[in-house]
């Protein structure tokens, strides 16, 4: 019975995470907004425009400056658009950050495809360093007619201690919890 318990724990800790990731990939389930969009580009729909607005929030007293370079853009569905977020580490220590996206209205989340996003990686910044971070996206032409404005919001977290600790896991690391982009 003890062997059974040992086998069970070994399976749960080492076999299940990759199996889980595989199942999510194969079945196409799991939040798509955290991973890069890898399908073919869609034809541009010139007949309608969608307003995409950008927000930034510092979570848990994160001291960086973190803000979108533009408040909003107006795009055609299918049209690829590149925007930027500005971040500056205003402290005297080197830090690592993680940005986590969120989309409103909730029905739009499956239709906002990110091709490149700074949120897919951890963002290290040395003390005082600043950076313009790129975001490339397009809106799926299948977006319901009723949605005219999409708001994309990023929350930035300080993951310096999570990254440096030996037990720590982080978004997009090999052993961590995660996204289909791995």
């Amino acid at each position, binding site marked *: 019975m003890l062997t059974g318990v040992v086998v069970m724990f070994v399976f749960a800790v080492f076999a299940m995470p990759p199996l889980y990731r595989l199942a999510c990939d194969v079945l196409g389930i799991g939040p798509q907004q955290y991973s890069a969009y890898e399908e073919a580009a869609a034809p541009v729909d010139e007949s309608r425009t969608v307003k995409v607005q950008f927000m930034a929030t510092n*979570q848990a007293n994160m001291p960086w400056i973190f803000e979108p370079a533009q408040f909003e853009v107006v795009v055609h569905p299918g049209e690829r658009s590149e925007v930027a977020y500005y971040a500056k580490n205003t402290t005297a220590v080197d830090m690592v950050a993680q940005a*986590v996206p969120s989309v409103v209205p909730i029905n739009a989340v499956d239709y906002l495809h990110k091709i490149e996003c700074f949120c897919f990686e951890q963002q290290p910044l040395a003390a005082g360093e600043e950076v313009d971070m790129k975001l490339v996206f397009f809106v799926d032409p299948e977006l319901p007619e009723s949605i005219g404005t999409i708001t994309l919001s990023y929350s930035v977290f300080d993951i310096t201690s*999570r990254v440096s*600790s030996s*037990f720590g896991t982080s978004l997009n690391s090999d052993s961590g*919890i995660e996204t289909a982009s791995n």
Partner: protein
Amino acid sequence: MAHGPAKGITRWLFTTNHKDIGTLYLWFSFAMFILGGFFAMVIRAELFEPGMQLIRPEFFNQMTTMHGLVMVFGAIMPSFVGLANWMIPMMIGAPDMALPRMNNLSFWILPPAFLMLASTLFMEGGAPNFGWTFYAPLSTTYAPDSVNFFIFAIHIMGASSIMGSINIVATVLNMRAPGMTMMKMPLFVWTWLITAFLLIAVMPVLAGAVTMMLMDINFGTAFFDAAGGGDPVLFQHVFWFFGHPEVYIIILPAFGVISEIIPTFSRKPLFGYASMVYATSAIAFLSFIVWAHHMFLVGMPVSGELYFMYATMLIAVPTGVKVFNWVSTMFRGSISYETPMLFAIAFIILFTLGGFTGLMLAIAPSDIQYHDTYFVVAHFHYVMVAGAVFSMSAAVYYWLPKWSGRMYSEAMGKLHFWITFIGFNITFFPQHFLGLAGMPRRYADYALQFADWNMVSSIGAFIYGASQILFLYNVVATIVAGKKVSEPKTWEGANGLEWTLPTPPPYHTFTTPPDLHGTHDHQLTDDQLEDHPGGATH
């Protein structure tokens, strides 16, 4: 030959006797009730007036958290387990529980667990301060160091509940007297059987939630941390998947007690026995599929909110069946109003009121207004205090004469009842108004417009609190100096195998099971009574 109990402290440390263990659970839970009640008095004293007069907000948060934890896990749950231990074997004609030594372990791990939890008040950083529902990340990233002891205490208490439940299931399924089919069992036994299954199903989920917390706090995982790819809402789902069945775990044994007491003092059999069993089972099943009605404000899609709203409203149906059956039992009965009956009738009225506010909370769009306000606090105190605690008080007055062989003072019992009833309602009825007016819960201080009802509520709380000291006095005075009674049937209208036993019952009862074949319900015929005077060995 049977011998009496051992002498001295080792009797209590090593007992495997269901009556002793029941007594231990009951006294432990009463002590926890007083402790949790003391925390409530601190809360209401601070909320007596706006502004901070007595304690700092940080300590207030520890008081609200500890009040909830101690009352739910230390007072109400162990009290009904104690009742189960005392009554189930006697009610089914069994000599003891199925697993008497595990029974002892189930009890004895509780005092150390709660001693540890209470000791966190004296630790650096203070006691848990994140509410009894301990949502992450307040309970992970922002928790005081004592959170690890809190997690340990929850694990221990969960293990105790699981072991106790296994014991109850094994006992009820295997050790009923010959002729006592399932549909002849007393309702109290039925409700505890169903509750035991609920406990076995959901306590491991709580253990999982609390272990994930432990991992997040100490081992760098990110179950509930968005920065690492986790989700705080996951905590809420896991917690409430446990938490909703938990509240039915609290109330179902209370329903069972009421189903024993109302028929006795109405001198009429319980109306609709089978429908009571089915209704209890329906409530238990439904309790698993409604958890997110505690989460209507997390940002769930409308379809999810609608489903949980409808499912939650559905639970009102079997609950209503039970309430109507109790009232139908009383209808055209020959009713007398001894103290247990007063508590039972008050239960029916006040629990139903709590059920109505629960129905209001189930309406998702309305809950946007009510969520996390004093309206919720009022609701759950009506169902848990006027529900479960009144039921336990009724049970104590009802069975204490049988347990101790002494009768309580009816005048003192009634006095306790009326002060409790009046104090309870003065405390909690105005909290509905406070919630509807917008006062949030778990607030150490409040806006001035809430001052008047807060003062009224606090006065009620002091009255209610004082009355529980009277309760303690009543119980002790009865045991120590109450009028001795020795008839098996303390109450004229009582039915059930426990009322065929001597008063007080011998240390070992039903060592030979009674044969109930051919009897009606759970009554022995007169001949059988002659052959089995109390079931003691002879």
